[in-house]
């Protein structure tokens, strides 16, 4: 994270848990419609928003609804009718709303949703891994993932701006890890309402289109097959433009938030690194500490944190791959029958350039400490150095409790 000189006096500080920070950002964005169904560990977001609406702090329609499928459908309808709208869910809730996830993207409707990442049952488990969020991978949503409570707040505000940009017009999801962020308090810098209003004006309801009386058209009616394919191509094109819009909004946000993160990825000590660790989400902070310890020992390791999975930062990855001996990709999501999901994504981008070690860890919310990361990185770097690991791509499941 890059600090910009002298945090603007137009910001103030609050101690907030991740879920409440997201609610605060939705309030500052002046969302007009919120439809949601409770599910742990997301519930505190919409509970807080309901309270804000009830107290009159947020002038929005809060729709208590019968399911997650209906929640996103109501948000979709509200956005099609011109409103700025929001919802949040986790795990099984996301799977239940999945049909509408694709409808929202294919209908090109701008909106923001939060996914507090949570493992999928069985066994029943409320702790974090990333398989739920990554089921959205191919749907046409812009997919971001926060490392800190502050970043979850920042991404939520930025999400509305990026999603509503007429060059983009794709829905935007912010992921944050269950409990590690959702229920953990941090000091958060918050821009005041006046400067947020200037930075994020009300949504133009006519972009991309508005359903209103007197306008007789249907969205997504049946049509020639070629129309479907053309629409996919337009989405592909919008995703390419989204890369620039994300970077632009990230830079621009420094004016009100005092921070930018570096675009689609965050680079940590990568400039002279021979080994690149890749992570996503809250545990990146622990992995960075492990990188620091290895650096102290003179091992040339750096960390690349994926802030966005879609659009995918292929250029950034390839650029780093050319100078690297190997990538250690730490995955909190598994594609059964193949590798970890980040492992697959990254190998598609760089496997002809450098070696990849895909480490599967932390599934079901299993804690991975700084020491774990340190040992994992050190052991794998040694094995690659001495030639014990030679394959272009190899995979390891990190389950230290099974050994000895």
């Amino acid at each position, binding site marked *: 994270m890059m600090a910009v000189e002298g945090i603007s006096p137009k910001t103030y500080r609050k101690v907030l848990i991740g879920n409440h920070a997201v609610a605060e950002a939705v309030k500052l964005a002046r969302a007009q419609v919120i439809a949601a169904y409770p599910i742990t560990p997301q519930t505190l977001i919409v509970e807080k928003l309901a309270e804000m609406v009830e107290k009159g702090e947020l002038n929005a329609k809060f729709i208590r609804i019968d399911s997650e499928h209906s929640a996103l459908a109501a948000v979709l309808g509200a956005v099609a009718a011109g409103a700025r709208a929001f919802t949040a869910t986790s795990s099984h809730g996301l799977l239940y709303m999945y049909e509408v996830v694709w409808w929202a993207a294919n209908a090109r409707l701008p909106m923001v949703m939060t996914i507090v990442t949570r493992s999928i049952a069985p066994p029943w488990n409320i702790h974090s891994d990333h398989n739920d969020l990554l089921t959205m991978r191919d749907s046409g949503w812009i997919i971001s993932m926060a490392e800190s409570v502050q970043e979850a707040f920042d991404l939520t505000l930025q999400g509305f701006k990026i999603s509503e940009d*007429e060059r983009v*017009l794709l829905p935007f999801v912010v992921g944050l890890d269950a409990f590690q962020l959702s229920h953990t308090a941090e000091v958060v810098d918050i821009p005041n309402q006046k400067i947020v209003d200037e930075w994020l004006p009300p949504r133009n309801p006519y972009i*991309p289109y508005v359903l209103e009386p007197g306008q007789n058209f249907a969205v997504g*009616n049946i049509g020639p097959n070629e129309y*479907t394919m053309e629409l996919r191509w*337009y989405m592909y094109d919008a995703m390419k433009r989204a890369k620039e819009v994300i970077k632009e909004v990230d830079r621009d946000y420094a004016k009100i938030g005092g921070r930018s993160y570096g675009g689609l990825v965050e680079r940590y000590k990568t400039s002279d690194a021979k080994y690149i660790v890749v992570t996503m989400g809250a545990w990146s902070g622990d992995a960075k500490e492990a990188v620091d310890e290895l650096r102290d020992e003179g091992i040339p390791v750096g960390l690349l944190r994926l802030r966005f999975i879609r659009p995918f930062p292929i250029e950034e990855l390839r650029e780093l791959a050319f100078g690297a001996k190997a990538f250690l990709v730490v995955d909190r999501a598994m594609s059964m029958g193949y590798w970890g999901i980040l492992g697959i994504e990254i190998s598609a981008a760089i496997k002809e350039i450098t070696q990849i070690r895909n480490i599967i860890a932390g599934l079901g919310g299993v804690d991975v400490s700084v020491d774990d990361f340190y040992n994992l990185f050190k052991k794998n770097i040694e094995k690659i150095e001495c030639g014990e690991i030679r394959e272009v791509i190899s995979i390891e499941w990190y389950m230290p409790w099974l050994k000895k």
Partner: protein
Amino acid sequence: METSNQYLKFLDSLLAKPSIGAIGKTGLWRTFKPIYYRDKCIRCLLCWLYCPENAIDVNEDKTIAIDYDYCKGCGICASICPKKAIEMIVESE
């Protein structure tokens, strides 16, 4: 909906507006043809209301005219007419 905004071109494929004959002249499907007898007609306009193709136009004097370009010959109008003022006959060239 046609747009001049280059970023919103997708609307042309996404949004469907009602338009005459969007999928061709449905009149070509017809095997039976409705024939209208103006002198029997009491101008109740049930045929206009029931026609699924919007192929019945209402004249100023509330008599009707059938648009044979889009009338698909389903016979609903003849069936609903309380005065048998519409008769279905076999279509011929």
